[in-house]
């Protein structure tokens, strides 16, 4: 599994915390996207958002969180999550 296949997911208890950090990261120009948290990272029966960060941006994301004391649950890494030609739809 290459480094590029690994993605980092910033997890939250509540989507309002996620949106707050999303705005902070936008302002700080830290590349990221809003995604549904992968099921393997969710602790309970629930849908929910996460922020997806590439490996090269994860340190900047951590610094942004630290700088703003942003509320978040945890940061987890997963490999092989995104495969555009997997053809597994909902």
């Amino acid at each position, binding site marked *: 599994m290459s480094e590029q296949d690994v993605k980092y997911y910033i997890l939250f208890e509540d989507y309002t915390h996620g949106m707050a950090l999303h705005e902070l990261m936008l302002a700080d120009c830290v590349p990221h996207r809003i*995604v549904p948290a992968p099921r393997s990272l969710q602790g309970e029966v629930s849908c929910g*958002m996460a922020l997806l960060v590439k490996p090269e941006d994860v340190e900047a994301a951590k610094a942004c969180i630290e700088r703003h004391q942003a509320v978040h649950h945890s940061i987890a890494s997963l490999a092989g999550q995104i495969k555009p030609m997997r053809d597994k739809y909902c």
Partner: protein
Amino acid sequence: MADYVQMWKDLGMDLETHDLLCQVLPTAVGDVFMSQENRPTAMDFWDMVISEVHGIRPAELVEAQKQGRKVFGTFCVFVPDEVVIAANGIVTGLCGGSQFWVPAGETVLPKSTCSLIKASVGARLGKTCPFFRIADMYVGETTCDGKKKAYEILGQDVPMHIMDLPQMKREKDIVKWKDEIAEFAKVVEEFTGNEITAEKLGNAIRIINEKRKALKRVYDARKSECLPISGRDALLMIQISFFDDPERCAQMCNRLADELEQRIKDGVSVVPEGTKRILVTGTPLAVPNWKLHNIIETSGAAVVCEEMCTGTRYFENLVDETAATLDEQFMALSERYMKNNCACFTPNTGRIDDILRLVKEYKADGVIDCSLKFCCLYDTEKYAVSKALKEAGVPVLSLETDYTDTDAEQLRTRIGAFIEMLHE
């Protein structure tokens, strides 16, 4: 993670089965959307909505119900949202776009029913979609035989009103649709307890027109040689627009359009120069049906326009805002909605005209005409669509599919060959 479990329990949902859907959604969203590079920043709104698709908006609707408002679930672009909004009601789309819901639909419907209808019925009966649980009243329409029979089944489980859409477009048919809209207004007034006045309906007409204008701005940006947004992202935007608050939808679409227009000025494209441009036409692509767009756009082409209900038919043509009385407004609504070129009409040459016009406007190199299996209407129209496009010198590929993943490899082969042919 946000906890909506209590809300889902209160809605009477089957949590165990619903959780299976929650498991597959992140994978599909990751593969289809997060694999793209250089997406518009303003897509963050729709990323957030799809990430919390069974949470945030359903919670808003439940809260509105607590304030006494009624939620109307609709299945078709012919149902006039304006009438519901004028009575302080809320509209939510209900079309099912997932194979996940199909088996529950097949418990009461023949297998030889299209996936969209089976999924829509299955989402209600299987108790696995909050929108289907929340809607106080469903509003159906007579756009196909499958839907008409499905509404009879759904009507045993939830209050249902059916609008009888004419199947031709003569002057008397437009008057008939106007009368149907007036009758629907009475039903909505009675159900909500709120009177619809000309002032309220006029305001609602303006709200929905603004939404249409905003959606059109995003689509207009896709006409540029410099393509600022992928077809997958544009599809997600329009799919969600059926569920969202119309004023917020307009605001977010305008925000996205601002960015897209700036991208065009800056020469920022999401695809390499020379990428073939595809117009997709056919049966609607209800959320989360992203299969066709994903296969096209991971096969070296870009989708630049959708001539379908989840596309141009949803926003083209505005309702005349100058009508002063309710009677005139109902007629203005009828005139606008009857311009929709659905395959339920005979003849439906307007759809051919639309496709030919849109091919030019969006600079499409080819057309993919795709219908759901067992949709007799769109399947039959493929002959006329294909004939007209060939006569105009526009390459066309006719396909049939459903919501399963099993034909994906076959679709990849056919679509890949079509795109390769466009390069010759």
